């Protein structure tokens, strides 16, 4: 008998391990992974062991396969929870966040500061600048917040109704926790203590030319402020630097946009010239800074006062703009390390 075999025998003997997935002991052979292990003929004989037991303790691949199969089985039998907005946390964590993580860590080399300004519990309204032709900044922000925040909070994004018109995209948006940007949904999320992410510039921000980069657009009617005031939710401004350069929009073919019923039709250095290759975002350097929260609890009665709403929206806008400038000073080269 070899070491691991004995170990397992003991494990079964004293009944310590009911679950087959045993973590390797310090004396386990290090090379035993991915099938490249020395032959151990006695393992192949149908013994008293349960067939569900993966071959050996510490076999990383067995464990991964078993976990993946359990995940698939749970998904295929519908054994998961979805909230009333259609948010599927399990799918988001297992599929969407790993993809985004790869993107923002490896490709965009994102640096995050001030994440402690986001409340660890209870409602919060995260307000950011929007840019980049494709609203990748919103997705990256939600993944960054989930990974970097101590409470691993989910950011519930509010999206334009265009997002929910398009098949497939609408369902990905709902499953990752987004919903239509409207007062009832925003207030419902805030009242249930969720962290809501909103980009008040909307298409004016995402669809602006490269020449106008890092110039905040108008903040609409300040609807996000009214929602925060009505629920007494703190507003956390966030500045995102880097998304402007991923798809630098040189021109906007308006007739084509009208024809396709899109808010704009972008022309970038790579799109549409390189076809699908033009969809690859340029590897800019990203900096994300969360600013100190703006409390609103003392203003709950002023939600309908346009002066208060506009002033607060202006304050948030100014904070984001100033933070953008200071972040840009820290990053002289958009495509630097």
């Amino acid at each position, binding site marked *: 008998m070899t070491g691991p075999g004995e170990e397992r025998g003991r494990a079964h003997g004293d009944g310590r391990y009911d679950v087959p997935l045993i973590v390797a002991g310090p004396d386990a052979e290090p090379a035993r992974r991915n*099938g490249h292990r020395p032959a151990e003929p006695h393992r192949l004989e149908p013994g008293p062991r349960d067939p569900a037991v993966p071959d050996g303790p510490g076999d990383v691949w067995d464990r991964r*396969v078993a976990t993946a199969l359990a995940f698939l089985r749970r998904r295929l039998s519908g054994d998961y929870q979805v909230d*009333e907005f259609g948010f599927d946390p399990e799918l988001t964590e297992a599929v969407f966040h790993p993809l985004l993580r790869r993107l923002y860590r490896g490709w965009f080399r994102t640096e995050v500061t001030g994440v402690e300004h986001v409340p660890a519990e209870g409602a919060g309204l995260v307000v950011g600048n929007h840019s980049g032709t494709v609203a990748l900044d919103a997705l990256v922000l939600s993944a960054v917040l989930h990974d970097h925040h101590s409470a691993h909070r989910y950011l519930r994004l509010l999206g334009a109704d265009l997002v929910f018109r398009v*098949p497939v995209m609408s369902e990905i948006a*709902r499953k990752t926790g987004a919903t239509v940007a409207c007062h009832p949904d925003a207030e419902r999320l805030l009242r249930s203590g969720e962290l809501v992410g909103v980009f008040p510039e909307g298409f004016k921000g995402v669809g602006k030319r490269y020449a106008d980069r890092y110039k905040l657009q108008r903040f609409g009617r300040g609807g996000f402020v009214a929602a925060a005031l009505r629920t007494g939710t703190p507003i956390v401004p966030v500045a995102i630097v880097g998304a402007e350069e991923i798809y630098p929009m040189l021109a906007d073919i308006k007739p084509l946009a009208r024809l396709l019923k899109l808010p704009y039709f972008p022309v970038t250095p790579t799109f549409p010239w390189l076809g699908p290759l033009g969809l690859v975002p340029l590897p800019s350097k990203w900096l994300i800074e969360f600013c100190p929260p703006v409390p609103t609890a003392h203003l709950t009665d002023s939600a309908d006062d346009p002066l208060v709403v506009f002033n607060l929206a202006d304050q948030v806008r100014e904070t984001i703009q100033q933070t953008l400038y200071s972040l840009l000073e820290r990053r002289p080269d958009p495509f630097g390390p």
Partner: protein
Amino acid sequence: MTPGGTPGAPGVVVVTGVGRYLGAHVAARLAADPRIERVLGVDPAPPNPEFAGLLGRVERVRIDLGSLGGFLADLDVDAVVHLALVTAPDPQQGGRAAMKEQNVIGTMQLLAACQRAPRLRKLIVRSSTAAYGASFRDPAVFTEETEPREVPRGGFGRDILDIEGYVRGFRRRRPDVVATVLRFAPFIGSTANTTLTRYFAQPIVPTVFGRDPRLQFVHIDDALEVLHRSVVEEHPGTYNVAGPGVLTLSQAIRRAGRVGVPVLEPGLSGAAALARSLGFGRYGLDQVDLFVHGRVVDTTALEREYGFTPRSTAAAFDDFIRAHAGGAVVTRERLEVASQAILDGIRQVRAAVREPR
């Protein structure tokens, strides 16, 4: 309160639509309640034989809703429960025209009769969450105050909007009558037989490509409970009646062990129209809209007012699955076997790789 009934509970109750599942069960349930003296079941057609057994203690009246006027006044009716709605056109019974006649004109006539019934003090009208319409700008969760943003494409949704409009008019003209409008989510349960239960009972179910709507159901027994309480208690207003929680369509299909086949939306609308004109299947634009947009309602008003929480959407759906387990294609057991086979396969491959050494 009026003599003949205990305060709250009415003496004479008229239930419309007793020839169908919901009406028959509500009438039977009310007849079994000792607080209620008489239950009159109104339906122009003879009841479906499978419900006839339920209606033993219900006095059946075979008149149509148009000639109800004198009848309500003569019998000193205290409460009217209006359930005679058709949710989908039935080609055998006149199709969409007959459906609209029954839903809209029938309700108009009933409300006209109710307006002239001096002793009437309670009106309960069955409505549907289809009242919220379907639009891409809709909020995710509808409360009772949400106004529909677009008039629904489906016939049933349009009928519901008309019916609720007439009830609003009735409320203005007879403020002394307690009017309750119940917006039910689609019914489901082990015995209910509706368009949606027939849909989920098939082994292969069509879905809309790229859409995974959020659905809510209400268990038919909970719907009966809410209707019963509406009759014996007083709950003026409009209430959403749905099981808390949400199932997405794909999740529901997987839980039921069915196989979903995505179809492009224009194709599905066309197929629905074709199936309807060929006389099989009763799917209409109502169903297509539901499967594109989904529909989730807030039930806190119901829970607060009635002190009753329907069983959750997932639990109601589980009850339906148990009764229809026969048609399942993908079951938990088969998935278990398949994943076991994969694990064993990997083990064997590895053993084979190891063998030559």
